[in-house]
């Protein structure tokens, strides 16, 4: 992507119908360290590669437990990721308090996506610079893996990878054909 006159703020469209700020945010996800997720009927697994800012520092944590039935992996601006993690934990807690049951993963993911969309349509805000991969288990519908984009979209996947050099993981999973795998598959990746 080259710098151009339509990329100053998120409320400007380009003549080709693109919002560059959002695409730049997604670029930040691609530069982050890799995270991989996959599922079968009863398990959903996520794995990340931890990076350390320098040789002397500790590795940055990128997987967070949201609730007993749900966890996320982030790629990109980890600070943004922690904010979303806090939001998700809060929503899950509130749901548990009111309904005494686990929050359906799909609904929480949808709420996060709607929250991310707000950052793409306000002149005083910026998009979240983090890709969120959620792995969760609903009693009603089984295991799920979702991907949340800075653009405010979310997608459900059987298997997915994000971050730098994630294409290799994606190709490997496509070729191998995901479906009956369990925890071992994610370890292999």
């Amino acid at each position, binding site marked *: 992507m080259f710098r151009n006159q339509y990329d100053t703020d998120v409320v400007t469209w380009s003549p080709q119908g693109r919002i560059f700020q959002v695409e730049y945010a997604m670029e930040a996800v691609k530069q982050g360290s890799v995270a991989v997720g996959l599922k079968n009927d009863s398990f959903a697994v996520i794995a990340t590669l931890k990076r350390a800012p320098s040789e002397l520092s500790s590795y940055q944590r990128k997987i967070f437990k949201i609730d007993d039935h749900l966890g996320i992996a982030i790629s990109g601006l980890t600070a943004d990721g922690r904010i979303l993690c806090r939001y998700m934990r809060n929503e899950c807690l509130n749901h548990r308090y*009111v*309904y*005494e049951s686990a929050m*359906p993963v*799909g*609904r929480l993911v949808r709420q996060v996506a709607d929250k991310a969309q707000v950052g793409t349509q306000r002149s005083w805000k910026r998009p979240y610079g983090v890709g969120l991969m959620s792995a969760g288990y*609903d009693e*009603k*519908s089984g295991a799920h893996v979702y991907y949340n984009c800075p653009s405010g979209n979310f997608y459900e996947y059987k298997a997915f990878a994000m971050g730098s050099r994630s294409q290799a993981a994606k190709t490997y999973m496509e070729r191998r054909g995901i479906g009956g795998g369990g925890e071992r598959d994610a370890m292999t990746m």
Partner: protein
Amino acid sequence: EVISVKPVDAEKKRTLSPYVTGNSVLAIKYKGGVLMACDMLGAYGSTKRYKNVQRVFKVNETTIVGASGEISDFQYISNLLEELTTQDFCYDDGCTLTPKEIHAYLCRVLYNRRNKMDPLWNSLVVAGVDPLRGESFIGSVGMLGTSYTDSHVATSFGNYLSRPLFREFQRDDMSLEEAVSLMQEALRVLFYRDKTSINKYILAKVEKEEGVAISK
């Protein structure tokens, strides 16, 4: 000298006493699901004013809620439950609220209102069948926010008159016929002994496969 300032109509906005009230609601588990019964009276004090009041509300295909106490508050609660169901419908993800979740939700609503000293003047009974596990569920929530679950539940006068019968004769593996006749016996006792009751009643049942059925 302390001067307390209250908005002028603060007192008018709290429920101080119920006006049009419903009578007991009874619910028992049986082999195939749950059974709920109540009469169709909306009493205005001692006057038997409204004789065709539906006090059982179908929330979704797996749950029904019955109420005794202030009818207008029950209508408000029915509205809230309908909003929840509509939300589920709009999500369109196959996830619907289970009886347990609805019970927990109503507990929180009623308890919060009681904490504001503005209660919803109802005793609610939530009954249904959990679609995943096929387990029957009966729960009760009072206007003070007290809640519990059991195999048989009754509100208002039913607590004193019907529950002894339930304790003696109700079993979780009763057949539908046995359950209906036990319920009718309980209703008969209530009609004899409770002064604000009429002999018109409805039965509602929830079963795992067939869902909700409410008689006329």
